[in-house]
Structures are given as C-alpha cells and as structure tokens.
C-alpha cells in the first residue's frame, strides 16, 4: 500500500479566544478525489489553509500534516521548507477568481512565475512557452493572446481556469480547491469542474475539493467528508453517504439541498427544530388566476422578421405587468474622440406579461440582462425604448412625484444579506424606511407585526444588522419589502448567498407570504433549482432576449431552445445522482 498523498492527524486550529477546529484526522490516498462539505462557518476553509500553511498570524495550528508519508510535519516546518512544497508538491485554487490574480501583471507572466520559482523550467523563455501550453490545456480561447492579457480583460470563468492552470503547472501530487466554482455561472461551473476532474485524472494527483454544494461533490469526487462546527461528522463513499447518511446533520443537509422533495402544500422539509410559522392555514386562491393565452412558448422573439412581436405569457384583460418591445442600450466609455462610442445592448425589444398573483421566474446567466430588466420594472432605471406598465403605472419617463404611489406598490428583496441592510441603522429604522407619513406609534406597531410575520421577535428592533446571521438578515430585508403591503414583489437572487439549510427556510417564508398577501412575484435568479421550486412560470433570458417562456415543469422537462437545454444540463441535480455514484 503506497503511503497516503496527505495524512492529517488531530489537526487543531485555535484563535486567542477559542478553538475553531477540534482535532481533524483523515487521509487522502494517491490519486483519490475527496470532497469536503460543510456550511459556512463549519471550518472547512480553515482546514485547507492550515494544510497549505497559509493561516493568518492570529491563528495557531497543532497536530500533524504529512505529505506522501514524509516525516516532516508541515505545521512546524520553517518558511523556507514550506515554500519548496507550496506550488510544487501541493497546490491550491481559491474561491474568488476576480481578485486572485495580480491586476498589474500579465496573466502569462503570473503562470510562468510558479515554474521559475520552483525551477521546474530552466529559464524564463521555456516557462513562458509552458504557460501558454497550460492555458491551452484549460481550454482558454487563443492561449497565446490570453497570456498577454491583463486579469481585468478576462471573465470570472476564464480567470479561474488560469488559476487552475497555474496550480497544475508543476504537476502537484495534491490539489486543494476551496469553493472553486461558487462564484461562477452555471455553464462556467460545469466546464471548470470538468477540467478539474480531467487534469487531476491525467496527472494522477489526489484532490481535496471543498464546497457547500453537495451536487458538485457528487459529480467530481469519490469520497466525501462532512464537517459541522469544526469536526468531521461523516466520512465515506459519496454514493453511500448520499443514499444512507448516518449522522443526523448530514441527513438534514442532504434533505435541504434537494428541492424536489416537498410536502403537500409545496413546502420544503426543513429541519425539525424550525419554529412553526403562524397558523399555516390553507389559503384558497379566491381569485382564479387570469386566463393565460397561448402561445406562451416560442423558441425566439419574432417568428417573421418585421412581424408583430411575440408576446410571452400574454394575459387577456388587465395584467399586473405589461411590457412591449422594451430595449435598453448603454454607451461604453472609451472609443475615439469623434467616433460614437460603441453601444452595448442591455435588453433587445422584450415583450411579455405577468398576470396578477402569478410567480414568474427569470433565469439567465450574469450579463444576460436580467438585473437590468429587474431595475426597469422597479423604476430604478429608464428604458431606452418600448413601453413598460406595472400595476397600471406607465414607467417610461415618469417623474419621481408620479411614482410616489407606485413606490408603495412595488418592493425589492436583494441578494447580498450583508450589503442590503445599512450597517449603521437599527433594524427598526431599516424596516420602517419605506413607510411615508406614518406616526411613530403606528410605525412601531406595523414594524413589530411585520417582523413577527417573518419569524423574528420584537427585541430584534433595536439591534444593528451585523448582530444577525445571513438568514435573519434576509428575513429583515423581506420584512422591509412587505411593510407597505405591496402588490408586486421583485426578488433579485434573494437566496443565492444563503447556506443550503437556511435557504429552505427563507424559500418557505417567501412562498408563505406571497400566498398570504396574494402578491405577484418576479423572482430573478441564475439557480434553476430554486426557480423550479418557487415559480409557476419561468422565462429564460440570454443576451438581452427572452428565448423561452412557459410553465416551469414544461420548460425544465422539455426545453425547446438550445440555450435552455444547455443551462438545464449544466445544473447538477440530486435525484439522478444515486445510481451513477457506483465506485
């Protein structure tokens, strides 16, 4: 039995105040691909950084970390010894590709550097050529040109590939990846995961993949470790762990991650400890949803050039939202002094309706224009051409005074729990902000009621946002959105930044409140699974155009447009995993 590529025994990491990792022990065999799952704050990143010896000065690590059976314990090795190992025998890829490259240095030079540092290539010229080969291996378009580019000229996915090429440059025996694809779009994520699997297999290196997304681990790794609050609670082959998890925490994690398992009312199963919401009464939808006329599904905007525009999801009678030939162009800065600046087409004459009470999901990758559409619907941005009527209010060119009434009717919930609440304001003022001309007493009462409605008790009012977890902050954000009893709720990636377990609770809350207040919901997201669970209709948007729209079930099971098909196949989903995970 050859020595394990990496053996970690009783790894403890503590800060001056408390111990964060409580004695981790695991081995990774040569060529074995291991996944490490856990929610944020479980210490999974800490484990990887302590193996690489990159812990910040304030933290201290004890125990032992040995590479391929060597006697040197990396935790106590001196800087010089560690530098010989790092980037050579073991390498690491980090989560945030946008900031992981030196903005002032060309990409090729940064890749070549890892080779010149370890003298695996004798001379800068060879290192530069080898770098271009590596960029080709990670399938970057035109690698020679890419090598000369600066990081800001590449997309997130391309930069992650550069980092991967850099990590694999010296054929490391162990590759550590800390959430390598979390910040990427679905399609880019699929490609990068494919590359990681491929490169590791070619070089026979072993892999430790850290992520919070069980589906990603299922797709790439053969064995999985589950971490919870600084300890490994489960360790075993992926198939066995997914099919029959032993530890209760793993059970909950898997359940929360699988959005297809719902109870009769369409709510996800949340961990038993969840507090029951107020009187979950079955609300009959009293007003039957307005009839939706075909054709609500078409592969592209206009069937015949110059013909009438295809109106997606057309609604007879009075729709909540009516959009006709909406376009939005931007002037990109730069360009020559007199030549007109190049025009960027944000949205290209969209036409669609949303019926009152309908839950429309808008799915698309970053840069597809879904955020621009969302901002126009909320009158935060003016359309370049076309008409937009929301709740009877014509938005094109409306002045802020005319929009006063509209502002109470339409509210937004944002993506980033950290950034959507003003850190310097108390919760009471945050939630009460949308209210206008309301006495102090009535304001206090309404805020208290609204907070209760989202499952937070009253003593929360006088605290500041930084004293709450991500899930609680999103609840506050929802409370703020609903305080003025809006008729239309727009959610912009409302759950993407949340942990899996917390995500389930927030989705349930959203569904509950949309039913209870009979809201029309427009849910914008890049996560097809969430949209499938929450929305009854979905519109797929690509490069400023709606390419497909229809009932969620239909679109997911029988996608018509090639782009939709690519999106759906790129999303790793849970159910079909069990059979494929045979060793």
């Amino acid at each position, binding site marked *: 039995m050859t020595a394990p590529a990496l053996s970690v025994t009783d790894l403890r990491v503590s800060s001056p105040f408390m111990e964060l990792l409580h004695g981790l022990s695991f081995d990774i065999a040569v060529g074995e691909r291991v996944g490490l799952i856990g929610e944020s704050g479980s210490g999974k990143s800490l484990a990887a950084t302590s193996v690489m010896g990159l812990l910040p000065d304030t933290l201290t690590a004890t125990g032992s970390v040995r590479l391929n059976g060597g006697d040197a314990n990396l935790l106590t090795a001196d800087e010089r010894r560690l530098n010989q190992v790092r980037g050579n025998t073991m390498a690491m890829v980090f989560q945030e590709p946008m900031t992981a490259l030196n903005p002032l240095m060309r990409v090729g030079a940064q890749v070549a550097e890892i080779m010149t540092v370890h003298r695996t290539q004798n001379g800068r010229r060879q290192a530069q050529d080898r770098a271009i080969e590596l960029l080709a291996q990670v399938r970057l378009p035109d690698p020679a040109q890419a090598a000369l580019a600066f990081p800001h000229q590449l997309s997130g996915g391309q930069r992650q590939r550069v980092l991967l090429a850099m990590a694999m440059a010296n054929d490391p025996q162990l590759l550590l990846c800390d959430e390598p694809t979390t910040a990427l779009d679905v399609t880019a994520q699929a490609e990068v995961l494919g590359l990681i699997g491929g490169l590791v297999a070619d070089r026979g290196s072993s892999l430790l993949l850290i992520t919070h997304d069980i589906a990603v681990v299922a797709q790439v790794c053969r064995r999985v470790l589950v971490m919870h609050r600084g300890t490994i609670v489960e360790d075993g082959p992926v198939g066995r762990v997914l099919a029959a998890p032993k530890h209760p925490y793993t059970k909950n994690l898997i359940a929360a991650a699988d959005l297809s398992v719902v109870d009769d009312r369409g709510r996800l199963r949340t961990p038993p400890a969840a507090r029951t919401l107020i009187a979950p009464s079955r609300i009959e939808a009293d007003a039957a949803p307005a009839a939706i006329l075909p054709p609500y599904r078409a592969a592209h905007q206009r069937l015949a050039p110059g013909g009438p525009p295809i109106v997606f999801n057309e609604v007879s009678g009075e729709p909540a939202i009516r959009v006709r030939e909406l376009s939005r162009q931007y002037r990109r800065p730069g360009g020559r002094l007199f030549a007109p600046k190049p025009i960027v087409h944000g949205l290209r004459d969209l036409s669609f309706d949303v019926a009152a009470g309908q839950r429309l999901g808008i799915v698309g990758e970053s840069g597809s224009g879904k955020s621009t559409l969302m901002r126009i619907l909320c009158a*935060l941005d003016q359309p370049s051409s076309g008409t937009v009527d929301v709740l009877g209010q014509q938005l094109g060119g409306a002045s802020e005074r005319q929009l006063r009434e509209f*502002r109470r009717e339409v509210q937004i919930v944002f993506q980033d729990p950290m950034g959507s609440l003003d850190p310097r*304001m108390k919760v009471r003022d945050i939630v009460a902000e949308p209210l206008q001309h309301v006495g102090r007493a009535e304001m206090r009462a309404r805020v208290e009621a609204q907070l209760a409605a989202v*499952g937070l008790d009253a003593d929360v009012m006088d605290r500041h946002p930084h004293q709450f977890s991500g899930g609680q902050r999103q609840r506050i954000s929802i409370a703020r959105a609903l305080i*003025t009893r809006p008729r239309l709720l727009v959610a912009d990636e409302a759950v993407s930044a949340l942990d899996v377990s917390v995500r389930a609770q927030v989705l349930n809350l959203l569904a509950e409140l949309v039913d209870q207040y009979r809201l029309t919901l427009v849910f914008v997201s890049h996560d097809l699974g969430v949209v499938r669970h929450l929305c009854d209709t979905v519109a797929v948007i690509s490069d400023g155009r709606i390419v497909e729209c229809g009932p969620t079930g239909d679109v997911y099971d029988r996608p018509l447009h090639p782009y939709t098909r690519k999106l759906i196949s790129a999303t790793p989903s849970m159910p079909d995993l069990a059979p494929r995970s045979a060793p």
Partner: protein
Amino acid sequence: MTAIRPAKSARRTVRGGDATLRAGLALIGLVVLAAVVSLWWTPFDPEGIFSDSILLPPGSEHLLGTDSFGRDVFSSLLRGAQISLLVGTVAVSIAAVLGVPFGIVAGMNPGRLDQFMMRGNDVSLAFPALLLAIIFGAIYGAGTVTAMVALGIGTAPAFALIARSGTRQIMSCEYVLAARASGKNGLFIGVRHVLPNISGMLIVQASVSFGIAVLAEAALSYLGLGTPPPTPSWGRMLQDRMPRATCSSNRCSLSGRESPLPSRCWASTCSVTACAIDSTLACR
C-alpha cells in the same frame, strides 16, 4: 429556527496599536486638561510684563523659568494649549463643513457633475493652506482667525477627496438601491445612509488634519503670520526661544540670565503632544 447566534464582530480588535493608543490618549488628555485649567487659573499671568524676573532659569518659583518679558513659561504653555486646540478644532471643522458636502455631492452624481467638481477641487488643491495664510494675512492682518480660516480652506480639498471616494463605495451598496426604490430623494440618502457610513474615514482624516493644523499654526507664527502677541501660542514661544537654543552650552558660557536648553525645548514637546492626537486616532 436557529437561535439568534451573535455574528462575529466586524470591528477589528486593536492589539498591536494598544500601546500607542494609550500613549496618545494620555497625551491628548494632558493637553485638553492644560487648556481647560488655564481657562481660569494659571500660576502667573501669561500676558503681563514683569521686568524684574526676565529670563530666570527653571526654579522652585517658576517651574520652567521665565521668558524675555519675565512671563512664566509654564503658564504660557497652559494658555498656549488653548490656542493650539482652538486652531486645530476650528480649522478642521471649517475644512469638514466645506469639504464633506462637496465630496458627497460629487460622489453621488458620477459623470459630468463629478468631473466638474473634481476640476474645481484641483484648483483649490493648487492653493495650499500656507499660501492662503500668507495672502489672507496680508488682506485681513495676521492673526489667529486668519490663520484658522486659511488652514480650514486649505485642508477642505483633502476632506472632499476622502468624502467622494467613500461616497462612491456606499452608492454601489444595495441598501442605497433599496432606499431609492422606496422613493427616497438624494438628500435623504446622503444624510441617512452615506454620511453615517463614511464617518469612520472622516474621523481619521480629521485627526490627521488636526495634527497638521497645529503644526501649521506653529509655522505661521514662525513666519509672523500666526497668533499675534501677547496671547501665548506654542509656535511663537518656540520661535522666541530659538536664538538662545542655538548657543549650545560648550560654545558659550551659560550666564545667569539664560534658561538652559531643556526648558526652552519644552515647548517643542507640546507640539509633539499635539501631533500625538492625530496618531492615536489614525493608527486604528
């Protein structure tokens, strides 16, 4: 529902800087105490003339000796603290009142208005505080007020730049978008959201500018443009002493009428304390 777990505190605990922080705060306390005490009590009248006790060396009666007008150096120091604190505070507040709104408006309206205001800022940057002090001194006569106004206007562009860069960061946050979505106008967003969030940066800039203003007042007094006599100011006290300070002991004998070098440089340590004020707040 998980119980409300206290999220990890965002504020960075101060470890390395503790020593300098405590030292700085102690020095500020000393200076403020001196200023407050001297409001109504000083051992001797720092503005009187006592021709019988000219240039006495430090002794029991006069802690730090007397100056060429026979005035007690220690009481002048206490009274001088008032001037330094006054100059620092007024100059910084003028700079803040002029610079911060300018910076916030520029930050909140990127594009043409921002470019226009920034060019205006460039022009005002080209008139450093000392130049303004010289010109105002000539127009309105040298004095503490002219010095403070000149220093204030001279440091305003620095505040404008800091406020602008802070505002641009805040404007990209989603809670500003949420406020706009609920119909709040520019003024509301500026006051309720932008100002509180950039106040941290502004305090650091204020403390740095405070130290620089106190030093600039000393320089202005040296050039004869600062606080006119007889009100004592540290800058001028330093300047009055200089002739004797140059005559280091071994070159010429210390006749009785001299107060030795250490006491004369005592006034310089006061300006050190003045600047410690900026170091404490800025080092966090």
